[in-house]
C-alpha cells in the first residue's frame, strides 16, 4: 500500500504524506521547457499569393520573428531587357505585375519617353488614363477578393471580384488582343486606336461599377467578423512607412498624403478632379477601405475622361520610329502611380539599340520589406492577412 508520495516510483516530491492537507510550491512559470517554433510558410502555401516563403518563429501562436524569403520567381527580367531592343522589353513588362499590364506598359513607355524626349498626342494620353484606371479597378477588386479569401470567406467575394474582372478584361482584349498580357502602349502613344464601340462599352462598365461597389461593400465593409479580424491588425505608422519608402495605397492608409498622380501630374492627370483617400490607423482594415475608396475615385476619373475624350487626333506620335529605335545617350527615371504604388523604370542609354542599364523599381517588393515590423506580436493567422493587405505580386517582387 502506498503511504506517501515518495513511495511512488520515480517520484521526486518532498516529504508530504499522500493523504491529508498539502502545501504547494509556486514558481514563476516557464518550467515546461516550452521552445520557440520555427515554421516555414511557403513557397507552396495557398495564402502567399504565389511562390513566396515566410520563415516565421512562433511563441505559441504569436509571431516573434519573421524573415521573408524571395527569389522563387526570379526570371532575370532586367538582364533580359539589357539584351533586347527598347521595344522588345515591352511585352516583358506585362509579366512583371501580371494583374496590371497596362500600367506596367505605361511606366516603361513613360521612362523611354523621358529618355528620348518624346511627347504623346492628347488622344493617346486619354486612352492611357482610361486603361490605367480600368487596371486599377481590376487590381483593387481582385485584391479585396483575395484578402477576404485569406480571411476564410472562401469563394464568394472572389467570385464577385472575378466576375467584374472578366468584364474589364473583355475591353482589354478588344483594344489590344490579349486578356492579361496587353503589350499595348508604345513610345509616344498606343498601338491601336479606340473604336467608338469600345468607348461605349467602357462607359457601360463605368456606369455600372458604383452599383457593384455598393453591393460589395454592403456584403463586406461593415461585416462584424471582418471588422474584428482586420481592425487593429498589422498597424503601420506613417513615420515608419515613409522611412521604409512604402508607396501606394499602403502609404495612404497610414495617413500620408502622397499620390504620384497628384505630385508629378504625369500624363493629363491635372485635368481631372479627383480626391485622394487617406487612412487614420494604418491597419489592415484601412488598407482595404482605401482601395475601395480609390476605386470610387477611379470611376470619377473614368467618367470625366470618357466625357472629355477627343473626337479626333493621333493615337501615336507619327514622328517616332519604333524599329531601330536609338535614344540619345543619357539616363532617365520615369515613374507612375501603379495600383500597387510607385512603379519606376530607370534606364541608361549609351546611344545604342539596347539599354545599358535597365532597372525596375517594383512597388510590391519595397512594400514587402516592412512585413516583419507589421507582423511582430501578431497571431500567425493574422500574418496571412497582413501579407494579403500588402498586395504583392511575385512577378514584380522577384522580377
Amino acid at each position, binding site marked *: 500500500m502506498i503511504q506517501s508520495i515518495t513511495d511512488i516510483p520515480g517520484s521526486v516530491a518532498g516529504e508530504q504524506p499522500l493523504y491529508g492537507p498539502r502545501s504547494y510550491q509556486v514558481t514563476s512559470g516557464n518550467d515546461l521547457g516550452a521552445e520557440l517554433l520555427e515554421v516555414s510558410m511557403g513557397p507552396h502555401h495557398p495564402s502567399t499569393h504565389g*511562390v513566396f516563403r515566410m520563415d516565421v518563429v512562433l511563441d505559441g501562436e504569436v509571431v516573434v520573428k519573421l524573415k521573408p524569403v524571395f527569389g522563387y*520567381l526570379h*526570371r*532575370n527580367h532586367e538582364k533580359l531587357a539589357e539584351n533586347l531592343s527598347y521595344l522588345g522589353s515591352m511585352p516583358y513588362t506585362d*509579366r512583371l505585375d501580371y494583374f496590371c499590364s497596362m500600367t506596367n506598359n505605361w511606366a516603361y513607355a513613360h521612362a523611354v519617353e523621358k529618355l528620348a524626349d518624346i511627347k504623346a498626342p492628347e488622344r493617346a494620353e486619354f486612352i492611357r488614363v482610361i486603361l490605367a484606371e480600368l487596371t486599377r479597378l481590376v487590381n483593387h477588386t481582385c485584391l479585396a477578393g483575395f484578402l477576404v479569401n485569406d480571411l476564410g470567406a472562401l469563394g464568394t467575394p*472572389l467570385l464577385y471580384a*472575378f466576375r467584374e474582372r472578366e468584364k474589364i478584361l473583355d475591353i482589354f482584349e478588344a483594344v489590344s488582343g490579349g486578356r*492579361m*498580357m496587353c503589350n499595348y502602349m508604345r513610345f509616344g502613344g498606343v498601338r491601336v486606336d479606340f473604336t467608338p464601340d469600345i468607348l461605349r462599352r467602357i462607359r457601360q462598365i463605368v456606369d455600372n461599377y458604383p452599383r457593384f461597389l455598393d453591393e460589395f461593400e454592403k456584403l463586406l465593409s461593415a461585416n462584424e467578423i471582418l471588422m474584428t479580424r482586420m481592425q487593429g491588425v498589422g498597424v503601420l505608422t506613417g513615420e515608419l512607412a515613409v522611412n521604409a519608402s512604402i508607396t501606394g495605397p499602403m502609404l495612404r492608409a497610414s495617413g500620408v498624403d502622397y499620390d504620384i498622380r497628384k505630385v508629378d501630374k504625369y500624363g493629363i492627370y491635372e485635368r481631372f478632379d479627383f480626391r485622394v483617400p487617406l487612412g487614420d490607423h494604418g491597419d489592415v482594415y484601412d488598407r482595404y477601405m482605401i482601395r475601395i475608396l480609390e476605386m470610387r475615385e477611379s470611376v470619377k476619373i473614368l467618367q470625366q475622361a470618357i466625357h472629355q475624350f477627343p473626337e479626333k487626333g493621333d493615337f501615336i506620335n507619327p514622328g517616332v520610329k519604333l524599329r531601330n529605335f536609338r535614344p540619345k545617350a543619357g539616363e532617365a527615371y520615369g515613374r507612375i502611380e501603379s495600383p500597387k504604388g510607385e512603379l519606376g523604370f530607370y534606364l541608361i542609354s549609351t546611344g545604342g539599340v539596347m539599354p545599358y542599364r535597365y532597372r525596375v523599381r517594383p512597388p510590391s517588393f519595397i512594400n514587402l520589406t516592412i512585413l516583419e515590423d507589421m507582423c511582430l506580436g501578431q497571431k500567425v493567422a493574422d500574418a496571412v492577412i497582413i501579407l494579403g493587405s500588402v498586395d504583392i505580386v511575385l*512577378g514584380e517582387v522577384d522580377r
Partner: protein
Amino acid sequence: MAVDEGLQSELQKAGVFVTSVETLYNWGRRSSIWPLQFGLACCAIEMIATACSRFDLARFGAEVFRPSPRQADLMIVAGTVTKKMAPQVVRLYNQMPEPRYVIAMGACAISGGPFKQGYNVLKGIDRYIPVDVHIPGCPPRPEALLNALMYLQRKIDGQRLTGTDKVRWYDETDPAEFPVPEFGAHDLEPPFNRAVWGPQEPIQRGAA
C-alpha cells in the same frame, strides 16, 4: 477487356448494367479530378479565372482545389519554374498519391517560354516529371485550360489496368518517387531526369 456494346445495350433494356472494372475506374477518375492549388506565376491567375465565375471549372468535376498535395490528383504547373523552385515542384509531385496527372500550363512550364534565355529559368518541367498535357500560350486562355482538362479526361478513359500497356502505377517495378534535383556547382543536379526526358539526338545530315 471492354464489354461488347451491342450486348451491353441489350442488357440495359432488360435493366441489367454490365461494365468492366476498368471502365468504372476510369469513369470515376475522370469525373472528379481534384487539382492541386498551386500557382507559380502569371498563368496561375488564368487558372483562378478558370475556376471562377465565367468559366467555372466545376462543370468538369474539377473545382475542388486542394492546398495539400496528399489530397490532389492533378498538378497544374501554372507558370515559370525557376531553378530555385524546381526541387519543390518535384517534391510536391512526389507527395501526391497515385494516380496523378500533370498539366503543363503555358509556354514557361513547357519550355521556359519568353524567359528561356534567363540563367535562372528551368527549360520545361517535363525534364523532371512526366507531363500528360501541354498547353501552349502566354498565358493560355481559360478555354485552353478547359480543353486541356477534356483532353486529360479522354486520356484517362483509355487507361488500362492490366496487360502490357497498363498504366505506370500498376507496375510494381516502377519507382513512385522521382529524384529531386539539387543545386550543383553550375546548374541543377541532375540537369534532367533520364527516365522521363532526354536531349534529342543530333540529326546526322547525309547519313544513309
